[in-house]
């Protein structure tokens, strides 16, 4: 077997997660005991490599990283973004690149790029940066003398997708993970005609320790190499290039 970090003792690997980010990690039904999701599969596999069993500590998203300090858990995996600010206090390994995508109805053959939504309705989740994305696009459309997009905001991600299924909204902007998940749930009814350039990286955090970080990185790379990672991506309907990201920071 591989080398394993010190904290994997007693055959248990404790992982903090928020458990409410499908398809990365979530409960399939309320009251379920076990989490499921892409990231859960990945963490289970890593634990297995280290000859341990993954144990999930579910908590509020904002309190996840501090849980490392209090040693309530040893890893944080919760679709959490790798940012320089966080890396100052903790070690983190990016392993998943998420893109912003345009989602339309599968039957819609006209909408290819965001600008095609001009004059039509776009549903977006309230309080997200996508609102700004649409506002910028509208400025461009206006400059080009086209009709602006009519943005409707909804309080939840699921509410947004519902608008496309209802046939009211032409498109929405969301993360590819969310889109993948919803496409899994309503097969054949949604499509992703356009993927934005910029991406953000999700990763796994741990307490600062060069050796532990190294071992975690190796474990991830091993999964990638063995093809297990690809199998998980396929299982969760995620783009198969998602995990093709650099595992080093800066």
């Amino acid at each position, binding site marked *: 077997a591989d080398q394993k970090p010190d904290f994997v003792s007693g055959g248990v690997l404790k992982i903090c997660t928020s458990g409410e980010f499908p398809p990365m990690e979530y409960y399939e039904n309320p009251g379920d005991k076990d989490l499921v999701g892409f990231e859960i599969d990945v963490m289970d596999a890593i634990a297995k490599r280290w000859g341990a069993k993954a144990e999930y500590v579910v908590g509020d998203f904002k309190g996840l990283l501090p849980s490392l300090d209090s040693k309530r858990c040893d890893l944080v995996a919760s679709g959490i973004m790798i940012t320089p600010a966080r890396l100052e206090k903790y070690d983190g390994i990016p392993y998943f690149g998420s893109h912003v995508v345009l989602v339309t109805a599968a039957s819609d053959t006209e909408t290819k790029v965001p600008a095609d939504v001009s004059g039509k309705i776009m*549903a977006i989740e*309230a*309080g997200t940066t996508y609102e700004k994305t649409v506002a910028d696009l509208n400025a461009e459309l206006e400059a080009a003398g086209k009709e602006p997009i009519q943005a*409707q*905001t*909804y*309080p*939840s991600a699921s*509410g947004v997708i*519902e*608008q496309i299924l*209802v*046939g*009211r909204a032409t498109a929405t902007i969301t993360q590819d993970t969310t889109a993948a998940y919803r496409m899994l749930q309503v097969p054949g009814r949604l499509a992703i005609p356009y993927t934005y350039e910029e991406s953000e990286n999700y990763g796994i955090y741990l307490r600062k320790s060069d050796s532990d970080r190294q071992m975690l990185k190796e474990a991830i790379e091993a999964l990638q190499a063995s093809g297990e990672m690809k199998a998980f991506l396929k299982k969760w309907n995620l783009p198969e290039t998602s995990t093709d990201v650099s595992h080093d920071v800066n």
Partner: protein
Amino acid sequence: MFQLDLFLQAIFSAPLFKGALLTIGLSLCVMAVSLVLGMGLGSMAGSPRRSARWLATLYVWLFRGAPALLVLLFVWNGLPQISEIFRAGWFTPFFAAFLALSLIQIAYLAEILRSAFAAVGHGQREGAAALGMHRWQIFLVITMPQALRIAVPALMNEFISLLKTTSLATVISLKELMTVSQFAIATSFRFLEWYGAALVYYLVIVSVLTLAQNRIEYVLSRGYR
């Protein structure tokens, strides 16, 4: 901690003001329509015909029972799946919210009005009937003013509740008062200032309504002092 300038800025910001206008406009429309139809339903509930009573009871049961959120979602997401016409341009979020909230409000108002009508003694209706007045004349001139006197505070309760309930319409993308402040807080994290501003708006609206209520009660209770 509490920044007065931010608070004032919030109060006078265009989105909050627009949100307030939306809240007031929507509530007024819903209330106006519900009062008329609730009155109809309320007197149906006191009708001698069993089928009419039964229908009224069923309606009240269903729409007092169904949470506003679900009715809103049903109207906004469900109706377009039932018929083509609800996908047209006129079926705006405002109209959908108006429809959904009216359906509910009618049920609540009907209950209040039913009991207020019942509280007006038989003698009043008999007195008017003996003068040859028709049913709807009796209703309009004799029963209703006396019933309203009793019902106004409860009706105003429902109006004020409605003001608050419109905030649920955020699920169908309507940006009213409370939604606007919550969005503002999500980005700025200034709880106190934005919620404070929203509170000021609500209190001002409710003050106006309370004054109106006092006035109406005063006028309607002239014969009872």
